[in-house]
């Protein structure tokens, strides 16, 4: 939607200001030309036209004229008050003129030649009196019920469209859908510039509204059928491309309500304003996880809106109480609001209208939708996707942290729906599943993706206990992570192994002790031996000393004996001794 190709002059367009319609028409309706809007009863033709005028006045300062053939000005004003359009005020401000063209067969008699100049004059007068740029003729076909001369009517209607074009006003002409034809009176042959078809279709007893641009001369346009809503703020067409991705983001983290699960995220929780999807097969505690999230939000003192498409509020409260999560006090405090309805109660668009409306009223910080997959039963996959895109976008723009659950059946089709349809829209995707082993099922949770946050890659087993959800520690067996009875077996095995190891250690310690003692004994022996050797050695030494002494004495005695005691010597001896 950027300003591209400035070379060729673009067909001038008058933006409608209607949400989404300007995207589909690539800028609006052809300026200064008539556009035909056809559709069956109750699909919002009048509403769309009125909104075109009101938005034209409010947003583009283009005054408008409404020629109402079917409703009086008062009826019309009353009908659109609920959308916040104050037609009376706009008329008082000379921005809008509503002219009711009363056509009643019983009051009109034809008495000769005539034309519709009266209509032209009224319209011309209305346009000139306020300088109107936009005109709505709703529904010009009513003329056919009041006048019988078809030839005159047709030529006059042709002349009217030509005249409107010459006046340069952007015109919407509404017409009833006809059998086989776009319109009952074949008006499409007079309006060649732009034809928009509104459709109110019932499939499987459920009504959805769709819009399609049948033709738009001189302009590119979306060719699909686009679902549209009639909301509190008027018409909202939902092309997927209307996602502008320009919402503010928060860096704040909110808890999932399950502490173990928070641990799996690096920043211990989810970003505020992000959207999270929990998918899983039946009975994998998706609702419990959703309720835990809601409960945690309430504990933080935030308002939370819980859409339950499977259970009644009472049932939900009872069931959650059984796992130790008491929602009742928060419901009483007004922090938690549980809205339960069967998905098939309304059409898809109606659900979204309801959701929009409640969010607008309640202004929650957190929203839980449990489950969105049930909505699939209401519409086709593409429709649901379009709607959810818009819903998620809406929630993000509002800064609401959202959690959706989705049931996945084993079949591939449904899984693809989730993968392609929604997962690209959500920021965080948690998957809960049955870890089916021999004779048992265990629940495992894993994070498939978490935008902007590192997260655990493990499949964590969790239990739904009396105190809520508890994630179990990771146990790694020989073949990966083990759960359930396997976990138990693994645990016992590990215990046995640990015991064995313990015993081994003790045995070794004893062995060492024994060896030490043997060693010590040996050392003692050796020492004893050494001592005896030493003793003996000392003994031998002493004997040797003794012997040498004896020898020396003997020698001295011999020497003295050979020379028997000379005086000199004997006289000298006392002096020496």
């Amino acid at each position, binding site marked *: 939607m950027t300003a591209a190709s400035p070379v060729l002059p673009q067909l001038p367009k008058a933006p409608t200001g209607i949400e989404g319609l300007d995207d589909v028409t690539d800028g609006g309706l052809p300026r200064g030309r008539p556009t035909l809007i056809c559709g069956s009863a109750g699909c919002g033709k009048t509403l769309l036209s009125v909104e075109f005028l009101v938005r034209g006045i409010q947003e583009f300062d283009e005054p408008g004229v409404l020629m109402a053939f079917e409703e009086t000005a008062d009826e019309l004003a009353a009908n659109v008050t609920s959308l916040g359009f104050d037609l009376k005020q706009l008329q008082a401000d000379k921005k809008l003129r509503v*002219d009711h*063209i*009363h*056509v009643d067969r019983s*009051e*009109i*008699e*034809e*008495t*000769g*030649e*005539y*034309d*519709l*100049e*009266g*209509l032209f*004059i*009224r319209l*011309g*007068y*209305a346009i000139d009196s306020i300088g109107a740029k936009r005109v709505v003729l709703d529904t010009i076909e009513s*003329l056919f019920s*009041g*006048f019988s001369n078809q030839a005159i009517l047709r030529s006059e209607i042709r002349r009217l469209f030509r005249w409107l074009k010459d006046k340069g006003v952007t015109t919407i002409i509404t017409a009833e859908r006809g059998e086989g034809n776009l319109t009952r009176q074949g008006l499409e042959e007079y309006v060649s510039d732009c034809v928009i078809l509104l459709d109110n279709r019932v499939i499987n007893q459920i009504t959805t509204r769709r819009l399609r641009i049948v033709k738009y001369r001189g302009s590119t346009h979306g060719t699909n059928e686009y679902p549209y809503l009639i909301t509190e703020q008027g018409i909202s067409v939902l092309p997927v491309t209307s996602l502008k991705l320009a919402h503010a983001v928060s860096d704040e983290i909110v808890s999932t309500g399950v502490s173990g699960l928070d641990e799996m995220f690096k920043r211990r929780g989810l970003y505020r304003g992000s959207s999270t999807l929990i998918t899983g097969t039946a009975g994998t505690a998706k609702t419990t996880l959703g309720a835990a999230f809601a409960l945690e939000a309430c504990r933080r003192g935030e308002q939370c809106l819980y859409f339950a498409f499977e259970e009644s509020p009472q049932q939900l409260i009872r069931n959650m109480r059984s796992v130790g999560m008491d929602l009742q006090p928060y419901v009483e405090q007004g922090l938690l609001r549980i809205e339960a309805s069967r998905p098939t109660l309304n059409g898809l668009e109606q659900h979204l209208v309801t959701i929009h409306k409640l969010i607008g009223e309640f202004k929650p910080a957190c929203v839980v939708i449990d489950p969105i997959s049930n909505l699939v039963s209401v519409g086709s996959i593409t429709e649901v996707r379009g709607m959810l895109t818009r819903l998620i976008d809406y929630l993000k723009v509002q800064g609401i942290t959202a959690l959706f659950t989705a049931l996945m059946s084993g079949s591939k089709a449904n899984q693809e729906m989730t993968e392609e349809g929604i997962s690209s829209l959500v920021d965080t995707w948690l998957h809960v599943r049955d870890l089916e082993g021999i004779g048992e099922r265990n629940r495992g949770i894993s994070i498939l993706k978490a935008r902007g946050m590192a997260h655990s890659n493990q499949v964590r087993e969790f239990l739904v206990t009396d105190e809520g959800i508890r994630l179990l520690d990771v146990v790694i067996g020989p073949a990966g992570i083990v759960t359930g009875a396997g976990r138990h077996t693994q645990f016992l095995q590990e215990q046995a192994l640990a015991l064995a190891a313990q015993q081994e250690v003790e045995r070794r310690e004893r062995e060492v002790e024994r060896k030490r003692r043997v060693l010590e004994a040996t050392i003692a022996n050796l020492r004893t031996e050494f001592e005896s050797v030493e003793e003996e050695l000392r003994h031998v030494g002493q004997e040797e000393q003794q012997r040498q002494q004896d020898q020396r004495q003997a020698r001295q005695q011999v020497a003295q004996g050979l020379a028997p005691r000379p005086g000199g010597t004997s006289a000298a001896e006392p002096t020496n001794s």
Partner: protein
Amino acid sequence: MESEEGQAVAGAEYVLHLYITGATPNSARAVQNIKEICERYLAGRYELQIVDIYQQPELAREARIIAAPTLVKRSPGLIRWLVGDLSERRRVLTLLGIEPDPNDPYLHG
């Protein structure tokens, strides 16, 4: 302002307003026709007002005019819109609740 008060009679039995668009052929014929009818059948008991909605477009809305020319019969009886140039004399007379005069040369015209 071509608003022409032809033989206005206070509290007249017939109150007729003819809305025309200038001097278009249809309008001219309608004026001629209604004047003749009034003179022939309703002399002295009618009030005829001719309004040119080119001149007074705001009156077209009040009188709920779509086609032109249109004769609005306000009384007697219920209000009726007689659309066209009023050249179907017999039909016009019937709608106005007037017994046709067999001598009316336009009766079969």
